[in-house]
């Protein structure tokens, strides 16, 4: 199975390594060549360029990819690339990182698999505080 990771930062590079470890054929795209160093001993593909550039996407082999993860540092860049991968290249599983919860929800309603780290952080932080021994003033007893 082939996966393309667009945006090889902390998140993208770690996802790439985990999928490669699972046996996926992984190619990463990043416009900064230094991003390759995040991948360590890397036997997968690496294409330098912007994910909006169709030539770059073609070189990374998105046309034959089974899955794609879009995790550049721009929410709008991610949702646009994600939609291009779905509509132009018919990639079956496209997962897109979107920091803004409302935009994540908007595009999720339109068929994009969005992952919103902000929403996860809010839920987790709230849950951790709620599970502490400390209680809000007035609610104890």
């Amino acid at each position, binding site marked *: 199975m082939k996966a393309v990771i667009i945006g090889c930062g902390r998140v993208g590079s770690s996802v790439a390594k985990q999928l490669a470890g699972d046996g996926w054929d992984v190619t990463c795209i990043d416009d900064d060549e230094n991003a390759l160093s995040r991948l360590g001993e890397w036997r997968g593909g690496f294409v330098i360029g912007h994910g909006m550039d169709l030539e770059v996407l073609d070189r990374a082999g998105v046309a034959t990819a089974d899955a794609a993860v879009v995790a550049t540092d721009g929410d709008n860049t991610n949702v646009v690339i994600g*939609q291009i991968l779905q509509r132009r290249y018919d990639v079956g599983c496209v997962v897109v990182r979107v920091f803004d919860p409302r*935009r994540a929800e908007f595009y999720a309603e339109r068929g994009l698999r969005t992952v919103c780290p902000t929403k996860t952080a809010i839920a987790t932080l709230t849950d951790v505080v709620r599970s502490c021994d400390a209680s809000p003033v007035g609610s104890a007893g």
Partner: protein
Amino acid sequence: MRREPGRERGVTTDMYAIVAGGGKVGANITRSLVRMGHEVTLVEQRRDRFEQLEAELGPIVLQGDATEIHVLERAGIARPPEIVLAVTGDDEDNIVISQLAKEGYGVPKAIARVNDPRNQPHFDILGITQTVCATSGLLGLVEHEVPEHDLVKLLELRGEGLELVELHVPPDAPAAGKRVAGIALPEGAKLVSLMRNGVGEIVRDDTVIRPGDQVVAILKPGVEDRLRRAVVG
């Protein structure tokens, strides 16, 4: 019958517009719309630019990122406006603003600026049919001035699936000396007008095409080559 232009037109042309992006393009569009009597909100992200625009245009300028839904809501996207103009310097932002406006809030018309012509296919495939690209427009004008190009695209009507092209008729062209009705035009193409010695005229079936004419045709995309062969050779 004499009409009262002001009153009659006032009702139909009054509209609400949101302009996203307060650069030269957005600021000038806003000024023009305000002058025409329309209601406008201009959204600009950068604080320094916003202050400049607010000093000039007053409270119709709003500071914020127009790709954030709460900012668009403050700008009145839920009313909804008759038109949204996504004219920031970032193509991804313009795509997202157009999608939020049309798909999220039912805005009937969204016009997006394309900064980098290489991104045009992205706008097209994501359903943003009304776009304006200064680079492509300028290139078209340059081609218009260069006689080596015998077929020049003047205008693409994306929504209609039609385009306007201009053809330069050389002396040995198959159409030269022929009446329009006698030219074997491909299906889906029609000659509209011609320019001869600096004078434009609408062509009729009995108009005779002459060498040196610049002929404007309307056609369905894809028949350019057959039209060129029929007119220019």
